[in-house]
């Protein structure tokens, strides 16, 4: 798969369709052309990935890749709003593709129905300009970070649980990577995911939408990105909080000046858990 050819003109239909963005001086025709020429990989077609995919497709992204190994379950539908009752049992990537294409048939959608791992990640990620971490486990978060550092791709990271959400951008414009903040993974028994801990569906809705916006700003090169900044959202109190994070760590084991890690490692072993560690989670329910 080759990268998208750079788009140099908008068709008449696109000018009508994206008119409300085009008239923004900061966005303009140039911004729309950059969107059309750009590709985004969304890892996880769940609570974060669904709204992110929806708004990127609506805004006219050229190419959207979606990674998910899972199939739609009825318990997903309270937050994973690209899926439908009629598509329970269908793979999430196919279901997401169908909704995205009915919203915008101009977008090229590539479904990746697989578990992302150290063997396949680089080969998939290399074809995309911006990566969205919309996953739900620690191992995938380290895998995505290391892949993005090795391939020099910006990583827009979102997460949500219960009433809370977090958002930041890693490995972009000299800012820190995930390992600069978290050199060691948390002990496995300290990690809670949405199946175990629960989540109000609209919380990942807000964070996933903001991930789409961060991706758009990176692609069009406008506005301020969440570099060295962490956004905390507490839906219960209805508050957002801006945190100033550290800079890139020159001694970081992957993005530092003299990195120790030069290729992908075994992330399940590193984190002591698997990305598809579903059974253990279900028992806890």
């Amino acid at each position, binding site marked *: 798969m080759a990268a998208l050819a750079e788009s140099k003109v908008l068709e008449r239909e696109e000018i009508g369709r994206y008119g409300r963005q085009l008239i923004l001086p900061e966005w303009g025709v140039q911004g729309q052309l950059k969107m059309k020429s750009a590709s985004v990989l969304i890892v996880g077609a769940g609570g974060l*990935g669904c709204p992110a995919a929806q708004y990127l497709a609506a805004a006219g992204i050229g190419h959207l890749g979606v990674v998910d190994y899972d199939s739609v379950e009825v318990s997903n539908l309270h937050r994973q709003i690209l899926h439908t009752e009629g598509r329970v049992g269908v793979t999430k990537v196919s279901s997401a593709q169908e909704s995205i294409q009915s919203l915008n048939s101009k977008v090229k959608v590539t479904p990746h129905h697989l578990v992302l791992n150290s063997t396949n990640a680089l080969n998939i990620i290399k074809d995309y300009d911006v990566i969205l971490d919309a996953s739900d486990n620690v191992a995938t978060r380290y895998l995505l970070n290391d892949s993005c550092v090795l391939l020099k791709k910006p990583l827009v990271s979102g997460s949500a649980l219960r009433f809370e959400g977090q958002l930041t951008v890693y490995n972009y414009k000299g800012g820190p990577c995930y390992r600069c903040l978290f050199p060691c993974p948390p002990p496995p028994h300290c990690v809670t995911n949405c199946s175990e801990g629960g989540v109000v569906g609209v919380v990942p809705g807000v964070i996933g939408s903001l991930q789409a916006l961060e991706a758009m700003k990176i692609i069009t090169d406008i506005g301020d990105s969440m570099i060295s900044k962490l956004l905390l959202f507490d839906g219960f109190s209805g508050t957002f909080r801006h945190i100033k994070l550290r800079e890139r760590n020159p001694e970081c084991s992957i993005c530092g000046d003299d990195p120790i890690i030069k290729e992908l490692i075994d992330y399940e072993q590193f984190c002591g858990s698997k990305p598809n560690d579903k059974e253990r989670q279900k028992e806890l329910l």
Partner: protein
Amino acid sequence: MPLSVEIEFSGGAELLFNKIKKHKIELPDKMGVANTWTIRDLIGWIKENLLCERPELFVQGESVRPGILVMINNIDWDLVGGLDYVINNNDTILFISTLHGG
């Protein structure tokens, strides 16, 4: 004089503290030593005085466990001295448990 400090927990760390996200506390005078409280001291104090259960979900050695970020007045502790940061009166110290769900 005792130090007034606001301690906050987010991202689930509050579940270890009776689900209370904001704690206004007074750190007592230290006897016999200069009256300075570092974040290292505070983490020890929290472990002894605030933590309701399972300390291994919050502390590791003299620091917080991996996956918890510490913010002093909304700034990463890494930028202001980490464990050695000397707490000022009315500081707000936020412990964020990183979320991984989606």
